[in-house]
């Protein structure tokens, strides 16, 4: 919403500078987004009179124009022909500055041009580039065009919040300014003599008084359609409205000034000159003046001529009854429509206008006659129309003003500051609330232009914002026992540990495309392929709530690959959304990772180390250890999206968590990531359920342990973890740790065999374990190994 300072001054005296005004408005809730004076960008453009126009000798499209300012004559080259000798035009003299342009003396096709005649667009007063802006004949020669065109006015761009339709007008903002500066608001009183000989042939009927409580018509006869005067055009343009013609511009001007949307119909195109306000009928169609033919809904409110629609109530008029150059008689509509009715229609028709934006927030029903009178007055002045004295005011349903009681003590209690009741009453009166005392409370009659104020708390807000939030003290509430839950702390630690292990945390979007999931090549029956979909996605690629983080992470890996990174490890902790039979999907937290290329580049201390299965597995194991959890279990797995022989399911205790593995080469190709990219995805709910209690210290034994190594030769197909398990079980309780430290395949163990070397730590309770005892345990393990794994001890 834009207003100009001079326009505001017509309603309220402003004796503070713009900076102070901005501060006051900001602190009142009407935020000023920008302040600018358009004329500040124009220097050296003056009013000149055209003395002579002749053809440019070397260019058909150009003319040579002699112009006169006060006593000085210039010749300029000009490309437009829309003016005549004697017209007054804006001349940018040599040395003038315009936005993006410095005027110098220059030759155009061999002819010297000392300056430039300006179009409205060049001066920022219109969007018209095609011709020179012709100024009023009384413009003073040689005068700066900035004041002539009203460009010395300061323009405020305001953010009007949804609850304040009353501030969507110069009058409304002026009312705020008056309240904030202690000035008195000057109302617009439109008094003009109406000729008595003009009748009003119009009839009005309201069929739905709930949707249209009031419909008022003024009839204007014999208007001459033409352009609006410059002052009005300049103001409209400053406020972002394109001037069209005097009659249409008047409705727009009054809309900006008083905030009340009105519509002008060409009376001669309205059949029978009858207005009937009703809901649309099933299957009814209507072409609005933007040229769009619209299918109407039965809840849409229409202005009709009794038979066919002529306007979409409160939103836009019809093409067929639009005011045009040939219009002479005008039906001026000034009505009040139900906010929700307008809101739903605007949404259904996807049609938002200055009018609908105001009606759907709630207009001032009492403003209808005032705005109509003001518009009629301007039409009479600017278009020479004669206004009928008859005011057709169908007031089908009276809207009562709201009465609210305010307890000043309640204000103090909610705001945390003490404001004397007298001041509270005064603050409310300053914004035209009618306040009366009522035994320790204030009874407040709310004006019709404040639909947002219906409850005591709304009045407290008014008192608070006018008193100023900057006056509030800064205190703290008493608070409660705060802190993070154990699982929340664990989630933080998990992120930090993974990051500390060299894996970057990624954050990727939850909305993905099912096609991305398809790329994983999962089985038809895999539940990951069933996703919750959005009915109205922004783009098709973001239409489903993800059931896996892998596609997004692989996309990030691909992005980093395209940036020529040597390698990347990424993890993400986020929700997946699994469809259920209930209204809402199941949202579960998962941890996923994707790893590609080098983990470490070559260093002087060692060779390059790529991400591989065991490095990623090691990261997971370290992370689980960091959470105080036992090591996760890994069991060989196959199936997409994994490499058939390089993947494992991951579990914690008896709870399955997910899987880890190298991606299938086909999947790598589909996601444009390097071969041997690895991923994992684990459900975190079982992890957080299993979090250990606080660490309980085990005192280290005072007696030294015994250490022995065992190299076990087994068939290559035997899983290392099985061998380790057998050693641990058969060696219990003396064997307290089993660590695999070497795997050997080769001549010495024979084809199809491997040697697994384990380091064992052995202890006995309360004393030192002897070497002999250790060897006895070893001898106990050997038959178990032989029996359960076919393993033998390598000499």
């Amino acid at each position, binding site marked *: 919403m834009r207003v100009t300072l001079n326009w505001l001054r017509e309603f309220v005296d402003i004796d503070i500078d713009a900076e102070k005004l901005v501060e006051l408005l900001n602190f009142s809730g009407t935020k000023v987004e920008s302040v600018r004076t358009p004329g500040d960008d124009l220097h050296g453009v003056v009013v000149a009179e055209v003395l002579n126009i002749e053809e440019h000798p070397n260019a058909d499209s150009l003319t040579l124009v002699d112009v006169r300012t006060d006593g000085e004559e210039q010749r300029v080259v000009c490309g437009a022909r829309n003016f005549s000798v004697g017209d007054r035009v804006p001349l940018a003299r040599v040395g003038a500055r315009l936005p993006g342009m410095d005027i110098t003396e220059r030759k155009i096709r061999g002819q010297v041009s000392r300056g430039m005649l300006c179009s409205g667009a060049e001066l920022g007063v219109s969007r018209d580039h095609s011709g020179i802006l012709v100024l009023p004949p009384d413009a003073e020669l040689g005068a700066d065009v900035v004041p002539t065109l009203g460009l010395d006015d300061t323009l405020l761009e305001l953010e009007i919040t*949804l609850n304040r339709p009353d501030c969507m007008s110069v009058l409304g903002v002026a009312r705020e300014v008056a309240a904030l500066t202690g000035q008195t608001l000057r109302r617009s009183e439109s008094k003009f003599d109406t000729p008595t000989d003009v009748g009003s042939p119009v009839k009005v009927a309201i069929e739905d008084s709930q949707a249209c409580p009031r419909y008022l018509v003024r009839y204007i006869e014999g208007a001459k359609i033409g352009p609006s005067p410059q002052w009005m055009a300049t103001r409209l343009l400053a406020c972002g409205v394109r001037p069209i013609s005097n009659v249409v511009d008047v409705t727009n001007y009054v809309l900006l000034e008083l905030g009340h949307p009105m519509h002008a119909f060409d009376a001669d195109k309205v059949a029978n000159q009858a207005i009937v306000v009703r809901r649309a009928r099933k299957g009814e169609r209507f072409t609005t003046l933007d040229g769009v033919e619209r299918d109407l809904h039965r809840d849409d409110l229409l202005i009709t001529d009794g038979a066919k629609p002529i306007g979409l109530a409160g939103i836009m008029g019809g093409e067929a009854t639009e005011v045009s150059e040939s219009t002479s008689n005008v039906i001026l509509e000034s009505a009040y429509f139900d906010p929700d009715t307008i809101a*739903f229609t605007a949404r259904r028709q996807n049609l938002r206008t200055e009018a609908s934006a105001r009606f759907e927030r709630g207009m001032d029903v009492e403003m209808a006659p005032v705005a109509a009178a003001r518009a009629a007055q301007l039409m009479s002045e600017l278009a020479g129309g004669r206004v009928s004295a008859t005011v057709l005011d169908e007031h089908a349903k009276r809207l009562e003003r709201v009465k609210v009681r305010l307890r000043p003590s309640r204000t103090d209690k909610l*705001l945390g500051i003490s404001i004397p009741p007298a001041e509270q009453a005064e603050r409310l009166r300053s914004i035209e609330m009618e306040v009366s005392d009522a035994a320790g409370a204030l009874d407040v009659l709310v004006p019709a232009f404040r639909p947002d104020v219906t409850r005591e708390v709304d009045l407290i807000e008014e008192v608070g914002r006018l008193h100023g939030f900057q006056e509030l003290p800064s205190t703290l509430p008493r608070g409660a026992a705060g802190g993070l839950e154990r699982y929340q702390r664990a989630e933080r630690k998990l992120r930090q540990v993974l990051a500390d292990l060299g894996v970057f945390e990624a954050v990727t979007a939850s909305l993905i495309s099912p096609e991305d999931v398809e790329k994983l090549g999962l089985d038809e029956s895999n539940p990951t392929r069933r996703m919750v979909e959005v009915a109205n996605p922004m783009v098709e690629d973001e239409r489903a709530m993800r059931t896996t983080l892998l596609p997004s992470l692989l996309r990030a890996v691909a992005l980093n690959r395209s940036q020529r990174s040597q390698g990347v490890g990424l993890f993400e902790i986020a929700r997946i959304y699994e469809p259920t039979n209930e209204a809402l999907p199941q949202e579960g937290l998962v941890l996923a990772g994707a790893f590609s290329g080098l983990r470490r580049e070559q260093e002087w201390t060692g060779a390059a180390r790529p991400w591989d299965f065991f490095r990623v597995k090691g990261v997971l194991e370290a992370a689980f250890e960091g959470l105080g959890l036992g090591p996760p279990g890994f069991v060989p797995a196959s199936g997409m999206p994994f490499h058939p022989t390089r993947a494992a399911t991951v579990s914690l205790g008896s709870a399955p968590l997910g899987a880890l593995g190298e991606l299938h080469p086909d999947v790598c190709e589909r996601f444009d990531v390097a071969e041997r990219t690895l991923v994992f995805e684990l459900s975190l709910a079982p992890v957080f359920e299993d979090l250990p209690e606080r660490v309980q210290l085990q005192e280290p034994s005072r007696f030294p342990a015994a250490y022995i190594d065992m190299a076990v030769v087994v068939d290559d197909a035997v899983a290392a973890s099985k061998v380790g398990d057998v050693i641990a079980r058969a060696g219990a309780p003396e064997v307290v740790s089993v660590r695999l430290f070497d795997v050997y395949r080769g001549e010495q163990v024979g084809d199809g065999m491997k040697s697994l070397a384990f380091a064992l730590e052995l202890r006995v309770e309360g004393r030192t374990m002897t070497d002999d005892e250790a060897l006895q345990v070893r001898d106990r393990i050997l038959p178990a190994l032989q029996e359960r794994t076919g393993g033998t001890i390598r000499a």
Partner: protein
Amino acid sequence: MSDAEMRQNLERARREGLEAIDAATDMASLEDARIKVLGRKAPLSRARSGLRDVPEEQRRELGRVANDVTAEINRAIAAKEKTFMATETAERWEREAIDVTLPGEAPPIATVHPLTKTIWDIVDVFVGLGYRVAEGPEVELSTYIFDALNMPPSHPARSSQATFFIKSSGEEVLLRSETSPVQIRTMESQEPPVYVVCPGRVYRRDTQDATHLSGFMQIEGLAVDEGVTMADLKGSLEHFAREIFGRSLEVRLRPHFFPFTEPSAELDVLCFKCRGSGCRMCKQEGWIEVLGCGMVDPHLLEWVGYDPARYSGFAFGMGVERICMLAHGVSDIRMLWDNDVRVLDQFKGGAT
């Protein structure tokens, strides 16, 4: 052997012994010299054994001389040994020297995401004020997003222009456009006092640009208790803003509108780049809008079954990306969601 001869021998043994030791050039030749000078066949040893034949009355005196000579030679050896050991140690240090300017073998280290860090920073401020962290569904019932939050069916946020609806849910299920339903669910599940912050993902049908994404992160807070005032809101948020953006920062509370708070306000901080004079960062305004807030609307308290006459509260909400971008000078929101390691890598530092 005469007394004089004896003395002469001892003197010679002393002189020759000291010379031999002095002539040693390293530990090995010193050992040779020691054997030669103090060994069984050395002149000194022979002289000492000759003492047996000396008469009793002279033996004591000569014995003393012999001891002195032995002690002197031992001292000379010890001194020499010390010199040689110092040299040898020095040589070892020289041999074992390393180039400490060679790169260290640092384990690879990465970082949590800047948005995560931002959430942690904000959460920590409020945990310090006695808050807990609450979470709730992202795919949410319309009731919890709109009805409970005072947004009637005609509210613009309820349109399919603004909000993502779930397919075939009859506009009853949607992607939450703010984390506020978590506040409602929290209040439904417990009695006051309630002090919670709710971080999480939210979704809006915004066209992607440098400051908008259709899915982003938000963090909201709620305090409901007896006697909570707007002054409490101001004090809490001033504390928050200064903890996040700088201790001496100027903060202002500016009236605004939200359907779920009354009165409502926005919190601005003085632009920390230009300190109020106007720059690109603050769009020439001198102030930067940080969050929206207000006193919980009585409608919400009634909705969850709290007595608005007894309890009051405040709520606030902010975009995590916005806070992160302001705090770290990030100009394009998409940089935070691209996961380009060249961007992430820069966040290794910082207090958390």
